[in-house]
């Protein structure tokens, strides 16, 4: 479904990603690795916020390397930011309506909020401004991706800042999302419990893919510090 062919990305002299080759078509794909390994860069390349300095990206067989953010969104790619954006004057309902691509009813938008553990009545007319906490914004960000219901959804550390809400609920959200979209959900995460639900795990280190395979094969290596995997020491200890 999604393919990176010899993708590199540099800023000036600094090479952030080095010759990445990936084929992604599974249900849940987790991306992990130390800070600065290039995980968020992969998400930005998929959504079109940045374009590769070398290599091509394909989505459902089509070369999308030069495609705009808007056109990729329309083609079925969604991206939940690591740090959600605030807007003065724009309400939660506005964003969920925009995400769903139509003027949805209050009860429909409430359903998306309830799913991420927010009491819809309290939030639906709130402005997405500085009065919302980081955790609240993260949940709204997830609700927006849910409202879009696209075949490819990328989440950049969705669990960060969500304290009181159990991971089980977050995982349920992803499972329900899959039931609806039957697509691919890519989750950038350091959390063991999120990595544990993945079908495949990609491990990045220093701008390169150091592991990519079935969870059952990759996960034990990440967990077993005694094997002395160089990337586990920095991320999961």
């Amino acid at each position: 479904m999604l393919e990176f062919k010899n993708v590199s990305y540099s800023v000036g002299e600094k090479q952030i990603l080095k010759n990445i080759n990936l084929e992604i078509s599974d249900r849940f794909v987790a991306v992990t690795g130390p800070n600065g390994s290039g995980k968020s860069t992969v998400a930005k390349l998929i959504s079109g916020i940045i374009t590769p300095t070398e290599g091509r990206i394909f989505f459902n067989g089509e070369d999308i390397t030069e495609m705009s953010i808007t056109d990729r969104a329309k083609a079925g790619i969604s991206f939940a930011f690591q740090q959600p954006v605030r807007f003065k004057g724009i309400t939660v309902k506005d964003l969920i309506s925009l995400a769903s691509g139509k003027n949805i009813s209050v009860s429909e938008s409430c359903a998306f909020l309830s799913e991420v553990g927010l009491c819809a009545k309290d939030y639906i007319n709130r402005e997405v401004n500085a009065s919302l906490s980081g955790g609240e914004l993260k949940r709204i960000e997830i609700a927006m991706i849910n409202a879009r219901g696209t075949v490819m959804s990328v989440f950049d550390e969705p669990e960060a800042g969500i304290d009181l809400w159990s991971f089980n609920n977050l995982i349920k959200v992803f499972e329900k999302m899959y039931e609806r979209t039957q697509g691919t959900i890519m989750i950038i995460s350091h959390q063991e419990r999120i990595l544990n639900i993945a079908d495949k795990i990609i491990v990045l280190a220093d701008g390169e893919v150091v592991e990519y395979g079935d969870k059952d094969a990759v996960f034990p290596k990440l967990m077993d510090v005694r094997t002395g995997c160089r990337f586990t020491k920095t991320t999961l200890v």
Partner: protein
Amino acid sequence: MDKIQQNLLEQVAGIHEVPEGAYSLRINGQLHGKNSSENIEIVRKEDKPGIDIYIKEGTKNESVHIPVILSQSGLKELVYNDFHIGEGCDITIVAGCGIHNGGSENSEHSGIHSFFVGKNARCKYIEKHYGEGDGNGKNVMNPTTVVELAEGAYLEMETAQIKGVDSTNRVTNAKLDKNATLIVREKIMTHGDQYAETTFDVELNGENSGTHVISRSVACDRSKQKFISRVKGNAKCSGHTECDAIIMDEAQVSAIPEILAQNPDASLIHEAAIGKIAGEQLIKLMTLGLSEKEAEEEIVNGFLR
């Protein structure tokens, strides 16, 4: 009323025909109609253009509409409207001015509105300014608002000028007595070569008086805006003034907030921020499938809501 006038009325007052209850409707420099109600008396001024509006003390949950429509190009007028709001009232006043200028001469409406708000009265004042027209003539509006709030009085002003006003100079002067509160929410959007200047002078004279003056504006194309706010604290009081502007294209915005404390218990704050639309806001909306232009419109509409 013709179609053009009906449309202007819709834009500034959200109504299609003469309003219900107390109203005064002014079209092309003439009083088109007025209606008093049991508690609200509207009297035409004898010595100059304009009206006096007397609201009986204790009047609650009533409203007054006083729209002004100009569809004749080249008309210039200066109108005085005085609101005398009795003690303990709770009312809404809807004003607004719409100009359609299809000619080459400038059309100009200057309104001087004075509010005398009685003890413990509450008043919400809503004012919309709108201009349109296909001629070369400019639409000019220069509103002056004078506010005197008696002890415990509360006035909330919501003013909006979103479209079609080529030049405006808004002046608001307010004096607040003990326990009085003034809230101002101003929204301005300018396009083309438009110019908008707005000046607030608020004197907090009474103990525990307070004000929030909040201006949100968007300047596009080559338009220019100037925001001046002066809040004086002459007693134990609280004052807050905020100017938040989005700047686009080659527009210019200047914000000049001044706070003057003349009493050690005066607590005054000013905030001013001018900047373009944040790139991350555009990107977020584009990842939802909006084009860059659509994203920009959503952000501006929300900001000025």
